[in-house]
């Protein structure tokens, strides 16, 4: 039931953000984000070469995406894995529901995955009469609270420890102690029974190596290992972009992912799955299914937004974003939040969702610097603002990115200020206008939308260059 979220108050991101900023408990919880503020910078300082190598590997994969997917599928099939292709989210849900029905699976253990959040798989399985338990601790807390994850690595970051205690106590039927250790121990005991009873395990995929057909899962809690070890059927859902050319590429991708996500040198558990349980093995699933999800990803190939498919879902751009850090995930009202969510949400819905999100940004560029695979998120936000201006299903025209802002006014401004003469003429004009107009009229001068949330400062009576020439 991962997607049966409580609707956040507000019509758009602006209103939801105002609610978030006015909520003192939420603001207190969000200060915990400070603990991961510097993880991305540390990667940059200590391992600048990793970012170049990882960015190159991700671009290499995107350059031959269909070829690699073909290799991956052939390898998976040779290992006895059943491969399914899901053009849409609805197709993916139908495929997993069909597997669950065929096996009569009644209890599903889920490991946290953005792809399954994206297709609202938990809700679909529950609507089909199957009990689904989110086994990542943060995701479990959010599920019990009837909410939606607010951060892709730390789903319950919007809650204080006291709020988490209240959510878990309500489920326990007793007042649990207010310590992390006690709350964790209670959840361990409760969820252990769920694992032992589950007949279907559902996970995402962090990386899928085309050369060996290996699925790689990164977790800290061990729930990913349990979901892929105990249930007799394992379904892994992966976006098409999760494929990497070689298993050996993980030497740089894995540490970069976990350093960027949590600051750890490596996540506590990395699971590399190559096929289902072999005949001479005691555990592991008898059946392994891989669902390869498109859901508008292919429509980005060959466009200026193609780079977005390099994203490895580390959450570093959320942790450094001044907007995210004050409003948190629910203000975005979408599965993906933060800078990457502002780009991805309209793109993965063909413009049907999150059209206002690209405007919820200061364009400070912190996300560009934090991104371990060098996706120009802030630049894409500028492009999206322009592309989403016209109503309708805006989707990327296949052409190279343009270097210049595309609003007509901005283009004229850009041309005028590209020469010293143009700069001098327009600023002289502005100074003259500001002398004859009263302050209030000046502030609204020809720019009513621009100045709705900004001040247009009065030009100084005399320019610095003029003073310099006079007083030198």
């Amino acid at each position: 039931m991962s997607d049966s979220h409580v609707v956040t108050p507000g019509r758009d991101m602006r209103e939801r953000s105002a609610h978030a900023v006015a909520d003192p408990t939420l603001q207190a919880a969000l200060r915990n984000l400070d603990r991961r503020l510097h993880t991305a910078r540390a990667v940059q300082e200590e391992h600048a070469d990793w970012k170049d190598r990882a960015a190159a590997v991700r671009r290499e994969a995107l350059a031959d995406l269909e070829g690699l997917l073909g290799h991956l599928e052939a390898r998976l099939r040779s290992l006895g894995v059943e491969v399914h292709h899901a053009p849409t989210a609805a197709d993916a849900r139908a495929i997993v529901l069909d597997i669950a029905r065929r096996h009569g699976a009644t209890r599903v253990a889920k490991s946290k995955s953005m792809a399954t959040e994206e297709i609202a798989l938990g809700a679909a399985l529950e609507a089909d009469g199957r009990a689904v338990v989110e086994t990542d601790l943060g995701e479990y807390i959010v599920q019990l609270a009837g909410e939606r994850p607010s951060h892709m690595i730390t789903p319950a970051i919007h809650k204080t420890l006291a709020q988490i205690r209240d959510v878990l106590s309500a489920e326990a039927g007793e007042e649990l102690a207010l310590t992390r250790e006690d709350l964790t121990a209670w959840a361990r005991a409760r969820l252990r029974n769920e694992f032992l009873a589950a007949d279907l395990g559902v996970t995402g995929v962090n990386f899928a190596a085309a050369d060996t057909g290996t699925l790689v899962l990164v977790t800290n809690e061990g729930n990913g290992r349990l979901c892929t070890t105990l249930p007799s059927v394992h379904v892994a859902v992966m976006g098409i972009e999760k494929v990497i050319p070689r298993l050996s590429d993980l030497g740089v991708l894995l540490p970069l992912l976990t350093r960027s996500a949590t600051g750890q040198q490596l996540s506590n558990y990395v699971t590399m799955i190559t096929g289902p349980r072999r005949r001479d093995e005691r555990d592991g699933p008898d059946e392994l299914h891989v669902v390869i999800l498109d859901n508008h990803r292919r429509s980005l190939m060959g466009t200026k937004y193609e780079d977005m498919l390099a994203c490895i879902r580390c959450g570093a751009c959320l942790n450094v974003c001044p907007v995210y850090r004050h409003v948190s995930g629910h203000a975005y009202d979408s599965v993906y939040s933060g800078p990457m969510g502002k780009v991805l949400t309209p793109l993965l819905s063909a413009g049907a969702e999150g059209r206002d999100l690209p405007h919820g940004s200061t364009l400070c560029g912190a996300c560009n610097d934090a991104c371990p695979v060098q996706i120009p998120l802030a630049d894409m936000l500028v492009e999206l603002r322009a592309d989403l201006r016209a109503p309708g299903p805006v989707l990327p025209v296949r052409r190279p990115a343009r270097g210049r802002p595309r609003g007509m006014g901005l283009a004229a401004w850009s041309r005028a200020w590209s020469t010293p003469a143009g700069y001098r003429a327009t600023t002289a004009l502005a100074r003259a206008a500001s002398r004859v107009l009263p302050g209030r009229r000046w502030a609204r001068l020809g720019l009513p939308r621009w100045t709705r949330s900004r001040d247009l400062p009065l030009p100084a009576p005399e320019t610095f260059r003029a003073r310099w020439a006079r007083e030198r």
Partner: protein
Amino acid sequence: MGPRTLIDGLRANACVVHEVTPDAAAAFVAGRAAELWGHGPIAVATGDPVLVELGIVDSLRASGLPLLEPDDRDWHERLATATVGVTGAALAVEEPPVFALRSGPGMPRAVSLLPPVHLCVLPTSAVLPTLGEAISKLAAEPLPSAWSWIGGPSRTGDLEMVQTLGVHGPVAVEVVVVG
């Protein structure tokens, strides 16, 4: 001398690390398993070549401890009650500090996963300097159904982004470095 970077790193990851010589390994592991043993069975990956070659499977069988072996008929029923899981590690990395277990016959994945204590035997010969070298090495050989890389006790950052130990996997991990 053991691999210092790895041992320090595992300790920083909240592992308990012991260093023993190959001759002493069998007796040490059986003794340590007895100390860690609470009440339930001790699950042992009896097919693990590291445990076999160091004589640890034999020493455990001779110890009189209540062992649970993968070939036992009631393996699945009793595994959930096991208090200690004993495995070997086929591969490890100095930095980042991790060790890796391969699945296979007599080496079920759950031995290192369900019991609250994981006792892992790591020969120094299995230690490589970097993750890249280790992954290249395993990619060059036939892959088992699962390689499980482990850094220490199970942990979460989900409660206010503060690390808390012992979520779903083992609460305690003890590594016996043999070399």
